[in-house]
Every structure is written in structure tokens, then in C-alpha cells.
């Protein structure tokens, strides 16, 4: 995997923050992708399906356009099919149970200093880092 200039993640992050900020000030809602995905698929209580669908469709178009015009991402995926399935199940279940993911708790929640989001973000970052440590350095022996 090639190292990239910090300009890319910084610019991408600013766009994500602009998206979250605009969504709050214009539509009055948290731009959390797990919640929007659940809304879009009819799996959420309360959140309007139309808004979820609109946001997710926009996300897919935005990603496709940016890949074509700005930066073609080169994905490196080392996970086996089984690991992808287990990881996906855990991410889907966990984000709904914990009411948010990296965007809802991480970006929106930390921005408004929500104590719940501080705990959630600290928790999932720590568990994710610990998981990588166990997989790569204890089991993998790297």
C-alpha cells in the first residue's frame, strides 16, 4: 500500500465535516451513516426513509464521481470471505445497538461534545485497535 500525502485525508475529512454540518443546519439531523442506512432500508424507527435513501444515493454518486474525476482509489482487502461476513454482521448489529458509527458518534457526536458519543467513539476505537493488535501481533505474529 502506497503512503499518501496528508492533503488527501485532510481534504476528504473536511468534505465529510461539511456534509455533516450542512445536514444539521439545513435538515436539522445527524449525518450518521448507520442510521441513514437503516432508515433507507426501512429498518429504523422514526427516521424518514426518503431522507435516508436520498443521502445514500448521493453518497454512492459522490463516491463514483470522485473516483472518476479526482482520485481513483486502489483498495487492498486482505480479509477472507468468512471474515468479511463476520465483520459485516458485527458492524451492522453493533452500530444499530450502539446508536451510531464513526460518522454519527465520531464526527457529529464529538462535534457537539455529547458524553454518549465520547464514550462510544473511545470505546469502538479502542476495541478496533485492540482487535488489530490481537490479529496482527498475537495471532499473526507480525
Amino acid at each position, binding site marked *: *500500500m502506497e*503512503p*499518501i500525502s*496528508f492533503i*488527501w*485525508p*485532510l481534504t*476528504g*475529512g473536511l468534505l*465529510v*465535516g461539511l*456534509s*455533516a454540518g*450542512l*445536514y*444539521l*443546519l439545513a435538515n*436539522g*439531523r445527524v449525518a450518521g451513516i*448507520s442510521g441513514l*442506512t*437503516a432508515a433507507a432500508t426501512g*429498518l429504523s424507527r422514526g427516521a424518514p426513509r426518503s431522507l435516508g435513501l*436520498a*443521502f445514500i444515493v*448521493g*453518497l454512492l454518486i*459522490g*463516491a463514483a*464521481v470522485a*473516483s472518476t474525476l*479526482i*482520485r481513483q*482509489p*486502489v*483498495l*487492498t482487502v486482505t*480479509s477472507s470471505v468468512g471474515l468479511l*461476513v463476520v465483520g*459485516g*454482521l*458485527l458492524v*451492522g*448489529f*453493533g*452500530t*444499530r445497538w*450502539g446508536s451510531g458509527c464513526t*460518522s454519527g458518534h*465520531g464526527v457529529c457526536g464529538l*462535534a457537539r461534545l455529547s*458524553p454518549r458519543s465520547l*464514550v*462510544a467513539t473511545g470505546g*469502538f476505537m479502542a*476495541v*478496533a*485497535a485492540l482487535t*488489530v493488535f490481537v*490479529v496482527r501481533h498475537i495471532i499473526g505474529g507480525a
Partner: protein
Amino acid sequence: MVRLAIAVFCGLLFGAGMVISDMVNPERVLAFLDVAGAWDPSLAFVMGGALIPSSIAYLIRRRMDAPVAAETFHVPESRSIDLPLVGGAIVFGLGWGLVGLCPGPALAALTTGAWQAFVFVGAMLAGMVVFRLTVDRKS
């Protein structure tokens, strides 16, 4: 209609951000989480960059009675640290650390055509269905 257009526009910005930041790349995310290995700080810039406009927006919100295009704000007000919050964060963190994909990047990765993204997103939706049919089954 205005609200839907705003949602599409915010989605466009978000999706572009996922690709431009390279957060769609699971290996980049795992390298960020691998604090004991060859640590890649990239994602700290994504988080830091995102928090700048987001924090400003939440500060502006304090001076607003209602959003520009909707009647009321729908921002969670709960402050209780409970089992679902902590348990959900742990389960999510485990899945994120195993594969290196969280919901936003996973959806954006679909547009690259990588089959792994389709498997992951399919399982993620199944996980959300399981939650809806078990813990969230009230009615």
C-alpha cells in the same frame, strides 16, 4: 423536495470525502488502527478535518431556533451511558478492527466494484436486520 435535495447534496460531499480521504481502503484503516505496527496517521487527518466544519456547525446551531429547511432539530438529547451504547460500541469496534470497514466507507467502496465490498455490505445489512428482529423487537 428541498430537504431531499439537501440530503442528496450532503450525500455527494460525504461520498466524495470517503474516496478522496482513502478511507474506502480497508488496509489504510487497519494501518491506522495498528498502533503497535507501521502506524499510518492518515485517518487522524480525516477525523480532525471533519471535526472542524462539523464543530462550527454545531456552534452555529446553538443560535438557531430551527433548521433552515425543516421545522425542528432531531438531535439526540440523551446523556445516559447504558448497556446498548457500550455493548454496541464494543461489537462495532470488533467488526471494524477485523475488516477495516465501517458503514460510510463500506457503501462508498461499492462504487469501486470490489466484490469484497458487496459481501461486507450484504452482511452489514443482515446484521441490522438481526438487530431489528431481536433487541429492537418491541411491537
